[in-house]
């Protein structure tokens, strides 16, 4: 059953075309890596999939819901890790997650569980502003899975993560539909069944990693 069906997604910023008629179909539980050079349109595509941006034209359905008209309902089912961690530096790791529990209407008891999962138990009381960049990224990943979303949209989540990063990503991606943008082909090959390559906003095709890279 389809998790994502996108038809001719296009995003324009003035006269610039950031995304040009991209089609995409992803089954539930499938993992898709989005590869491409800087400025290829990866972040634009991921922001649209996360309902953070509206496409200029085209149609997008996620779990059978329209991404524009029904985005409120969709947001409870999507977890998004953006480029910037977007944390509150004066609040501790625990307080950051507790705040998002309130916004997602999730029980606070989930916080220690998530902190343990992303390996931040030891620094749970430390202000987010005093965490290392890698720890902040782990916290952002924790926030994205706090409400147990069915779809994870990850924009270069491996940035700043240490050697255990891929294992953490594999754990949080388990049993979820995932779209992951990365420059790391090895990571894409390890974590995703399919790969899509973008160039100048256009899709060069999607398939198994080796086929697409060739």
């Amino acid at each position: 059953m389809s998790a994502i069906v996108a038809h001719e997604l296009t995003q324009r910023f003035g006269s610039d075309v950031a995304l040009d008629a991209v089609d995409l179909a992803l089954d539930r539980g499938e993992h898709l890596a989005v590869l491409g050079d800087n400025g290829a349109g990866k972040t634009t595509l991921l922001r649209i999939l996360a309902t953070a941006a509206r496409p200029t034209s085209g149609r997008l359905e996620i779990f059978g819901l329209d991404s524009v008209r029904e985005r409120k309902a969709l947001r409870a089912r999507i977890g998004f890790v953006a480029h910037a961690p977007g944390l509150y530096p004066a609040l501790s790791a625990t307080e950051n997650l507790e705040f998002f529990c309130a916004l997602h209407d999730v029980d606070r008891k989930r916080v220690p569980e998530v902190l343990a999962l992303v390996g931040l138990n030891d620094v749970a009381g430390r202000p987010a502003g005093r965490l290392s960049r890698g720890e902040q990224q782990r916290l952002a990943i924790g926030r994205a899975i706090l409400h147990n979303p069915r779809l994870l949209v990850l924009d270069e989540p491996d940035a700043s993560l240490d050697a255990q990063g891929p294992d953490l990503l594999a754990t949080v991606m388990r049993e979820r539909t995932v779209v992951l943008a990365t420059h790391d082909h090895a990571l894409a090959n390890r974590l995703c069944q399919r790969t899509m390559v973008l160039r100048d906003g256009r899709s060069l095709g999607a398939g198994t990693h080796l086929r697409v890279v060739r």
Partner: protein
Amino acid sequence: MNRSIAVAYAVARKDLTSEWRTRELVPALGQFVVLALVIANFGFQIDSRNATVIAPGVLWLALVFAGLVAFGRAFAAEREQASLEAMLLTPASAAAVFAGKAVAAALLLIACEAVLLPALALMFGTPFNAALVAAVLIATIGMAALGCLFAAMVARVRSREVLLPLLTLPLWIPFIVAGGQAVQVAMGAGGSYNQAVALLIDFDILFVVLTSLAARFVLDD
């Protein structure tokens, strides 16, 4: 409804906790309003005869500029931290998020008023009474709603420091006019205090309702 209140409470609590720990805004605003009073005291050559006429104007000028800084920071900080998007990509209603931000910004401005009003009475020798405090607090509600709405609107714009006063000040004029009249009466001048305060309450209701309705379009669209 309960869900919206819980979200607004969480947002306000988060903003106030952050301010309490960093102390970025309130100490600076407190110093600013005291300095504004000192400058006005020298500039206007205030004495016991003209104090009740000039003091309300000085009060509102200091309050308006302190408010612009307080409300401007409410959304600019979220934008700098890239945390506003994370907050809006939750199922929480944009109106509840906005209400939480507005309540926190209003409370920060009230903390600044707690310095401003006694300092005004001390320097200008004007009365400091419950009627004066009530008029300023009532005006703060509507000013916070409007100020936060425009702050949210311009937060994405590079020239937000210029745009925020340009958009906000014209719509704050009713609060300054009615609030100025209420404060003058509270300080002993003639006129109807009840009429001025009733007008302030009307403006509060009008702008709180309008900004709550507009918040969704400003924050989410």
